[in-house]
């Protein structure tokens, strides 16, 4: 140890003693944090001009909202014949359209205890990738037996669920994970999360030089067979994770991140995502994001919605360029009375419009939408109810707004 190191350590010691001599250890903190969270939430909301406080009371509106929420809940089931294909962090999976897919996006921190005989000890880093279930997860229902599920995310009894994560090391000592495709099997005693072998399968594999592992939970039956089909459908590419949800516009996002819809437009896959954004213990808001080729357009929670209804449609736009193709996307919230969305363009080509239900857990009173047009796409998004036009939003961006480059050589984070 040299003199400077010694000086530093002595200084740290003196200062620490000085600090310990001042004040008393906290007995509790939540009230301080609550007040601070609320103050910040309110300040941010006011400063950003994001909240217009309108007092609306009425039991009829509340009842209607409850009715709509009730209609949005997706019950557990075997799954519709209609299949949706989504790509999350380079993992592409096909699953019944009425199932619930979550893009996870958190670090997959696993603490391996010092006495573990499996792998290196200490904090193991990796990346949670996705969660798929035949019911929407909630924080209150009984969990199926899934040791690999992140804390706090549960599925109703009788449901089936798949959890996939990428880790930096193989869990099984002396075992190199097989190359994909693999079949999940009943977990061995040394496998993580084995709690009921009859209700859980585990698999680990290598794909594109990455190590993945998956847990499949639920009782044997048609729904579990359908889950196995979804598991087997997975393919893997080298897309880098683009989600780092911890710092977002001075707020935080609180997952899970619901994949509302996915499609491929002009050869590029996209996901429409919804999730909560708030300071804890303060009123929650809902974010709607559009990711194209794994890249969040406009940044995370660029579109931050209050939970109440919208009038017609509200949204935001971005233009992306890949190769020689330019596509303009608009995405946002849609009031529940809208049954049709039309993209009316003066030039360019309308590529499609999509309407998706919001997850019941977010308790919002609207749905989400995406529209896309290529070329010199400028015009209007026209919304209609059963009989008439109810609103219109301008569509397109001025020439001064540069497109976001997507594709080989462009950053995905």
């Amino acid at each position, binding site marked *: 140890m040299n003199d*400077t*190191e010694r*000086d*530093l*350590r*002595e*200084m*740290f010691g*003196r*200062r*620490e003693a*000085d*600090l310990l001599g001042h004040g008393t*250890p*906290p007995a*509790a*903190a*939540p009230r*301080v*944090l*609550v007040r601070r*969270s*609320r103050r910040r*939430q*309110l300040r941010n*909301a006011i400063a950003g001009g994001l909240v217009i*406080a*309108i*007092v*609306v009371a009425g039991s009829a*509106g509340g009842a209607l*909202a409850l009715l709509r929420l009730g209609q949005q809940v997706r019950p557990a089931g075997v799954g519709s014949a209609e299949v949706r294909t989504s790509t999350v962090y380079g993992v592409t999976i096909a699953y019944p359209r009425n199932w619930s897919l979550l893009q996870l996006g*958190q670090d*997959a*921190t*696993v*603490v391996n205890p010092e006495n573990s005989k499996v792998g290196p000890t200490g*904090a193991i*880093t990796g990346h*949670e990738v996705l969660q798929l279930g035949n019911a929407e997860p909630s924080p209150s229902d009984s969990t199926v037996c899934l040791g*690999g599920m*992140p*804390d*706090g*995310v549960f599925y109703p009894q009788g449901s089936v669920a798949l959890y996939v994560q990428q880790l930096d090391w193989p869990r099984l000592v002396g075992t190199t994970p097989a190359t994909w495709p693999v079949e999940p099997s009943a977990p061995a005693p040394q496998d993580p999360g084995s709690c009921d072998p009859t209700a859980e399968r585990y698999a680990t594999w290598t794909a594109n030089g990455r190590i993945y592992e998956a847990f499949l939970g639920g009782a044997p039956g048609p729904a579990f067979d359908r889950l196995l089909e979804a598991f087997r459908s997975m393919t893997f590419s080298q897309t880098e994770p683009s989600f780092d949800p*911890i*710092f977002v516009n*001075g707020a*935080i*996002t*609180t997952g899970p991140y619901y994949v509302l819809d996915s499609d491929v437009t002009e050869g590029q896959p996209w996901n429409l995502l919804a999730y909560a954004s*708030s*300071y804890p*213990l*303060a*009123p929650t808001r809902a974010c709607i994001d559009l990711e194209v080729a794994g890249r969040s357009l406009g940044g995370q929670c660029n579109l931050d919605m*209050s939970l*109440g*209804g919208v*009038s017609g449609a509200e949204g935001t736009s971005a233009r992306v360029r890949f190769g020689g193709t330019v596509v303009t996307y608009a995405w946002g919230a849609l009031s529940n009375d809208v049954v049709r969305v039309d993209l009316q363009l003066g030039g360019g080509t309308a590529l499609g419009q999509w309407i998706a239900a919001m997850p019941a857990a977010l308790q919002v009173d609207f749905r989400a939408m995406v529209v896309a047009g290529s070329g010199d796409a400028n015009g209007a998004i026209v919304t209609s109810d059963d009989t008439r036009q109810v609103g219109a939003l301008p569509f397109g961006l001025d020439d001064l707004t540069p497109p976001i480059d997507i594709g080989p050589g462009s950053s995905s984070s």
Partner: protein
Amino acid sequence: MRATVTSELEADAETTARENQPPGRLDDLFVRHAPAATRLAYFLTGDRELAQDLVQEAFVRLFGRFRHLREPEAFEAYLRKTVVNLFTTHLRRLKLERANLEREKRQPTPLQHHDTDVAVKDEVWRALQRLPERQRAAIVLRYYEDLTERDAADVLRCSTGALNQLVARAMAALRDDLGSEER
């Protein structure tokens, strides 16, 4: 047309409801980890109140996230990483907020108000505070937190090589600084 209300009344009701929940991990985690995190933040920022702000900010951010941790034992590492990350990337904003608050209060700055004579006279301390933020963080993580090179590099989101460079530059700067003060 319907709209939501973000009123004080609703916020109070929500707060009350949450506070009435069974004893939560929130209290436990704060009591267990806040003092050490505050000391770390203090060595990084050189300002007690700013350190408290920074730690509160870190807790506020982590409370929405820690429920995803599969092992609560990882909280300490996450908290440390968040404190350092806030320090290196968000310190400017926090300083600005504090400056605004101070202007409103028309009070002396916390550093002048709280620091002891012993602290003010501490040349090593002042030299540390003059280091660039990432170098200072590297020194604090290695010599106060006693983290391994790998763990400190992980907190700073850099390679161990980059961490060693940060530490080497910081030590050289400290030696120069302390040497010139002695002269």
